[in-house]
């Protein structure tokens, strides 16, 4: 009896230890963002004196005002939203039409297609051959260069195919008996049942496009098509040097810092608002990707 009481109180203490660890981990995840938020909302006097930690001092929205008034940022933001939506839609269609035919076990050439697809997962021609291809296709400085080269991820295709495999064959067989064509089966059975995996992959593609900057850095010669992240990279790396800062008219170093913070917040918030709602789905998606058959 005594023994049992001791044991259960021990378990309780153990529980709290894990809770405390998790709270610390969460703080480590969140604190950098809070610090950034505080800086973006603080007055320049306090920033110059290095007094801002987690709570804004001299609260003002000047930095956000500057960002929102500058057509450069707004333009890049709208362009990146448009680009992300287009890329996500195109990629989802490409992924679905690649994954769906491959679930038919008796499709002639299926093995060959699988090999062609798998090879590209393991062997990449490399940065320069890709660059030379874009060059010879005349895509450098064409907005299509930010859409086409990444419009099908083989990894995501495998996730979708695993999901399709999980849909019972009997469903499509009975539709076939009813005379439905293969394309109709895709649209009337497979896609409606695949909403969870579609949501997951849409998130993966959208995040990839929203966060990617290296393709624009390498292939995009036209500044007006720079996505937000590349603009952000340039701003963060230039604003450090005083001559560029004064050129752009931000002469107070304090405002500089809060402005930088505001731009980062500005380009982060959309994704941070979306991902928690899709948590249930992407956990499933990641798990599907891990258990390849």
């Amino acid at each position, binding site marked *: 009896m005594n023994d049992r009481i001791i044991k259960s109180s021990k378990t309780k203490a153990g529980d709290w230890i894990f809770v405390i660890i998790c709270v610390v981990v969460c703080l480590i995840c969140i604190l950098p963002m809070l610090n950034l938020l505080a800086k973006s909302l603080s007055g320049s006097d306090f920033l110059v004196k290095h007094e801002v930690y987690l709570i804004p001092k001299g609260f003002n929205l000047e930095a956000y005002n500057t960002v929102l008034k500058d057509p450069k940022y707004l333009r890049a933001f709208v362009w990146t939203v448009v680009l992300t939506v287009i890329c996500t839609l195109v990629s989802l269609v490409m992924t679905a039409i690649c994954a769906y035919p491959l679930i038919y076990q008796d499709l002639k050439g299926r093995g060959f297609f699988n090999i062609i697809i798998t090879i590209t997962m393991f062997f990449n021609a490399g940065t320069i051959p890709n660059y030379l291809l874009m060059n010879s296709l005349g895509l450098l400085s064409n907005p299509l260069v930010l859409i086409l080269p990444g419009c099908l991820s083989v990894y995501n295709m495998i996730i979708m195919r695993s999901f399709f495999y999980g849909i019972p064959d009997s469903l499509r067989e009975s539709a076939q008996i009813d005379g439905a064509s293969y394309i109709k089966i895709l649209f009337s059975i497979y896609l409606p049942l695949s909403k969870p995996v579609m949501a997951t992959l849409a998130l993966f593609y959208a995040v990839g496009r929203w966060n990617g900057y290296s393709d624009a850095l390498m292939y995009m010669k036209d500044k007006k098509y720079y996505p937000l992240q590349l603009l952000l990279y340039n701003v963060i790396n230039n604003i450090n040097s005083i001559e560029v800062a004064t050129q752009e008219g931000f002469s107070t170093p304090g405002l500089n810092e809060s402005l930088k913070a505001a731009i980062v917040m500005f380009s982060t918030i959309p994704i941070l608002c979306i*991902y928690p709602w899709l948590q249930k789905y992407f956990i499933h998606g990641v798990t599907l990707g891990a258990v390849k058959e």
Partner: protein
Amino acid sequence: MKNTGKAVKKYWQLYLLLLLPLLYLIIFKYIPMVYIQIAFKEYKIGMSPFEMPLASNHGFKYFIKAFSNKDFLNALRNTLLLNLLDLIAGFPAPIIFALILNELTFKRFKKVTQTIAYMPHFLSWVIVSSLALQLFAPTNGFVNQIISNFGGEPIPFLNDPAHWVATYIFMGVWQSFGWNSIVYLAAIAGISPELYEAASVDGAGRFSKMWHITLPGIRPTIVVLLIMNLGNILGSSFDRPYAFQNNMVMNVANVIATYVYKNGIKGLQFSLTTAVGLFQSIICVIFLLLANWISRRLGERGIW
């Protein structure tokens, strides 16, 4: 022959659907391979790669040049070093985190913790590097502000090579540990609850259950992921190191991907950098095949 025709006719719609993805793979994944031969040739602007003259030393001029180039050897060393440190620090972190999460009894708290821990994964490397700047900058960084408030000397997190490496690795772990724990959590969820019940009956405590049931239960997942990571030890991403680089730490921050970008796309040394890229791709394939073979020899499920 007749059968093949029949099968194609029966499935023509499926072939139609596959047409676009295959076209994509051919154009964007296979045609670039034609350009790989530039590694063995003298690059000439406006000439097809087939017509370019063979480089000296039986075409291996640029491979020899790369391996006698200090910058490239430095990039090779850094790539290996950073990947290895990433593996040492970053591989156990999600496993430990998954084990801790699994011990949480408050469901709601667990879910909130997960959501918060996944957050860094959704930040771009540009943003993560700017967060590192906000946290660790020499005078106005969060951490150094605190240190100087207590009268300490600021730590050069971003300007001194050794400190930079530590910061780079730390921010990498910060960005990925939560996300990478998903796979382990799924594996833990697959362990039969009967095992835990039986262990409880035998009087096993929390930690002994963790050690004797949970960890062995997710061992296959751990092995497969470890091997996949080892296979990628010479792989290099571009986004992360490029976003973190600064001029004061170039001798540790310069990796193969950024070397290729700077000397190829910026410096127009196409033959040299194609050779470097080819070397990296081949090593990666060999490592992956080797890793898979080892995995099977150890009696674990292979990667494919």
